[in-house]
């Protein structure tokens, strides 16, 4: 069991380095969409919420899970939708949508 903790810390460390590396490459133009995208991604907490809500647990525990699940779903839905909405607006000069 102790070994498992260590491997989780490894995963955390490596993921952080990958995250730093990848995010550093993100165009500064896109920092607002980046934030709404990572918002949606960190709503991966939905995974934990589903387990708590759907498990064989007392109702008060599951109720907390359900609220968490609601909050995470909201973030996923609004996060991805608004990111896409914003990204659609970034056009090049001669791009297809460019009105004169």
């Amino acid at each position, binding site marked *: 069991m102790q070994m498992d903790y260590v491997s*989780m810390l490894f995963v955390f460390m490596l*993921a952080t380095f990958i995250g730093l590396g990848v995010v550093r490459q993100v165009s500064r133009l896109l*920092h607002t969409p980046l934030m709404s995208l990572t918002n949606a991604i960190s709503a991966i*907490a939905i995974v934990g919420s589903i387990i708590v809500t759907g498990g064989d647990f007392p109702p008060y525990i599951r109720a*907390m899970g359900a609220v968490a*699940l609601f909050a995470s779903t909201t973030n996923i839905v609004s996060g991805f939708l608004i990111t896409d909405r*914003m990204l659609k607006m970034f056009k090049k000069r001669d791009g297809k949508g460019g009105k004169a």
Partner: protein
Amino acid sequence: MIHYVIQVAYLVSTALFIFSLHWMSDPKTARRGVFAGVAAMLMAVAATWVSPEVHHHTWIILAIIAGIVVGIPLSMVSLTAVPQRTALSHAFGGLAAGLVGTAKYYLWLGHEQEMLTTFRMTAIILEIVLGYLTFTGSLMAAGKLQEIKWIPQRPVIYRLQNISNVGLLTLALGLGILLALMPTAWWSPFVFPVIIALALAFGVLLIIPIGGADMPTVISILNSYAGLSAVAMGFVLDNKLLITAGALDGSSGLILSIIMCRAMNRSFVNVLFGAFGQVAATGAVAEQRSAKSATPKDAADILDVASSVVIVPGYGMAVAQAQHRVRDLHEQLSKRGIDVKFAIHPVAGRMPGHMNVLLAEAEIPYEQLIEMDEINPELGQVDVAIVIGANDVVNPAARHDKKSPIYGMPIIDVDKCRTVLAIKRSMNPGFAGIENELYFNDNTLMVFGDAKAVVGELVKALSDEGGGH
């Protein structure tokens, strides 16, 4: 068997999340990033839902439907309101983490006390402290950004503020350590809610002293906390997908915070504990100097003979919703063969990249949005700079006045342009109460009025002259 299928799904989903961020490096591939993110999320949700631990489905379905019903309208807010929406979603992220941590603690305390090892208990404490402080802190930030009446907009400062804040956090963490060492003592279930209450209070107190201009940094820091609370949840639940996705969010928030802090020449500690408002009083006692003002018509005449123009947008443009008029201005000028560029300061607006999104919404091609560091060397050759609703980010005092509270902050050097047109509602100093030297320079003309109205009049004056070349 099903266990391995789930783990493989998580693995693929992790890879897709990384690609999702990778594709954000270029506006051309960015939308692909969203699709990768959605695919990853759907896969993770499906894999979790079919796992044998999940027995009941009604509540899950109801909660998901409720989330969709609330999420869709939240994604359709106007782009000026994006900072509030972002802060609100940090709050939701924090709340989810806090609740799952709380639920897991009481569950294990009641049924499987052997699960509450010191390591896991430490993770739970971190999860709930980060989660709940992000929850209230982000709600406060969202409230300030939305300008809700009962939340003070101006920084609220009182005696011993920092000491009491730090004391509160230390107390919460101290109790946390105690709980991590003895998670199942008779008093533990009573100490746990105390930690929650302290974290909730700390979140509010952390944001109270912070004003509008610091919002980009604060939102980025809260973004990071929301990510880290998801990481902590991953440690609690032994879930590597949560750890990786949370770490991606956490590192993204960290990078954005660093960029924001650098752009203001301040440190994290300074942003969080060095309330900007305190210095306001000192800046305001400057001697009376006079600024030159011009009508939109005069300004149009100056623009008419220019060959290069740089537009510097700030939060004032967002407030006045002037971005579409700015597009018209951009068109009028381009039609005359004038070279138009936009100079974007990293902290212009209320969140990272705020100006870029607003201008993109107004259909201004993104190649013309130039970063501060890139445009500064060119400004000496520019005929006219138009400052629209930006203030501190163009204040030359930042370069030389050691007494100025913004001394050392990198600025857009518009004062080096031949002429500066500053569109502003009045001479009132900006957020921090710092007087802007720029307005008193010989080459600066003030055009007073609401940004939207003034830019509209400029466009009209220019089109009346009919591009007379």
